[in-house]
């Protein structure tokens, strides 16, 4: 078996080593052309242009063409940030359908409407004055590979593409994004479509103008997800429309002036699970310290079927959970549900008929069903309460321990 694996390894090495790549360099953008896919590279217009794999280049704008034995990943655009510059490399198979602009370390990519394959955008390196903006009409993958990026003027990463965006954090990597103060951006990291986070790496976000993270459609953290740390936000830590689903990973949110996680409905009332949140696994830590904000706020239902949730609810008028309609807490098969909170806040704007808000561990505007798991709360704030339900409370199973009762 060992010999077999060795031989397979040798074979892979041999095949990898056999690749040849032509690199057409135009300023900060390099187009990668694998030799295996190239036919004749024709010159035209008296040698002023040449064309390779549907990419037409002007010899006046080509800095150089380099050749080596590296391998080209198809359908991939990579950005490597190096202080005030960004170097972009793009595989030739998709380059004709991507409009790429680079100014210093600010990169924008507009994918053509007729692009019908998924592009992997891989971001790495470091810049204190850079950004990445992308739009398109086909689903895409965004790989954050040890990226440290701050944009003093707007979002650090802004994905206007409204389709499914797979956000990959490779294992062992840490990506840190921050934006600047006083901008007009919605978030430091914004995704217009629906986002699916995967990979065992770590993502740190700071939102200095508004939200740290925002998506205009659902956000899903897959079971193999690593860690998301919201370090600070002028408004919400995570502002998610349609629904939020956490199947695994670790999410730590602190330093927000708005809600830690705010899930709101989209403009299309027919959207699936609109305004809901699901916690099916993982570890969620919410530090609810600002006044009159929520740890996990949903405009519609909240379902907790697994995972471990801790909330420090210390601001005036704060809530650990604020559920717009119904709350279901249970334990899915093979899962353990554990919710613990320290509720130390008191009333916000007491006596104000409009603005008064009381501190609660869990506030449910609809019905509440408890069918498994463990809830423990330590309530010490003046006039604070552990759980408040405006609708019907149904107990089926599980343990609730609120001190004092």
């Amino acid at each position: 078996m060992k010999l077999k694996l060795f031989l397979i390894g040798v074979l892979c090495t041999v095949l990898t080593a056999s690749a040849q790549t032509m690199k057409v360099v135009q300023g900060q953008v390099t187009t990668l052309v694998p030799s295996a896919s190239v036919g004749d590279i024709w010159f035209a217009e008296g040698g002023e242009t040449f064309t390779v794999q549907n990419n037409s280049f002007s010899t006046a704008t080509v800095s150089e063409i380099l050749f080596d034995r590296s391998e080209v990943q198809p359908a991939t655009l990579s950005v490597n940030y190096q202080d005030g510059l960004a170097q972009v490399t793009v595989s030739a198979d998709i380059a004709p359908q991507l409009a790429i602009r680079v100014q210093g370390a600010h990169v924008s990519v507009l994918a053509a409407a007729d692009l019908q394959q998924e592009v992997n955008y891989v971001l790495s390196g470091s810049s204190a004055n850079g950004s990445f903006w992308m739009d398109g009409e086909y689903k895409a993958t965004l790989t954050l590979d040890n990226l440290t990026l701050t944009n003093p003027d707007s979002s650090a990463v802004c994905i206007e593409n409204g389709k499914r965006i797979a956000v990959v954090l490779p294992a062992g990597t840490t990506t840190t994004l921050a934006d600047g103060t006083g901008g007009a951006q919605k978030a430091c990291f914004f995704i217009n479509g629906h986002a699916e986070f995967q990979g065992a790496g770590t993502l740190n976000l700071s939102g200095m103008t508004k939200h740290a993270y925002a998506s205009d459609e659902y956000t899903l953290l897959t079971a193999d997800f690593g860690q998301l740390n919201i370090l600070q936000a002028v408004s919400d830590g995570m502002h998610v429309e349609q629904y939020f689903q956490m199947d695994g990973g670790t999410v730590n949110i602190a330093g927000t002036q708005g809600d830690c996680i705010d899930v709101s409905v989209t403009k299309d009332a027919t959207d699936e699970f609109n305004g809901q949140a699901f916690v099916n696994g993982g570890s969620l830590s919410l530090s609810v310290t600002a006044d009159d904000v929520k740890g996990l706020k949903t405009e519609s239902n909240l379902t907790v079927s697994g995972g471990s949730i801790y909330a420090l609810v210390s601001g005036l008028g704060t809530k650990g959970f604020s559920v717009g309609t119904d709350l279901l807490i249970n334990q899915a098969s093979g899962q353990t549900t554990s919710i613990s909170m320290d509720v130390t806040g008191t009333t916000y704007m007491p006596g104000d008929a409009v603005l008064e808000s009381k501190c609660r561990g869990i506030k449910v505007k609809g019905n509440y069903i408890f069918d498994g798991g463990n809830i423990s709360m330590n309530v010490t704030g003046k006039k604070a309460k552990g759980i408040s339900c405006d609708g019907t409370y149904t107990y089926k199973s599980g343990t609730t321990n609120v001190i004092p009762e």
Partner: protein
Amino acid sequence: MKHILLTCLGLLFGLGLQAQSYDYLTLRTLNGDETSLGIDNLRITFADGKLNADNGRESASVLLADMSCMFFSLQPTGIGSQAGLTDASLQVRIVGGRLITNAPAGSSIRVYGVDGRQVSTTRLTAGTYLVNINGRTFKLLAK
């Protein structure tokens, strides 16, 4: 055992694929002249209306207006002239099984058979040969 044999066959197949490695880039002009350069460390730039190629061992410079195309190739496939005369400054031919050239002393001269193997410059039997002199490659016929 059978699995190991199959793996070995796969390995041999892989090595066969490697043999298809495109180790050369060939520049072809509008009049059909071809010059091949090894791709390792090859760099092409455009300046003063010329294409300049250099890999540290071989170099070539072609007027852009004369360029037809370039392509990857398995072997140096340069064609200077079937008769053996290439250009005004560099002449090469095979006479009586020997390579004759006016290349300067100390020039890098290598002769390959069509199978890609390097051969002697002095005992060339009838057949087709690829001759690389200082980075320029010529296809010659020995009678």
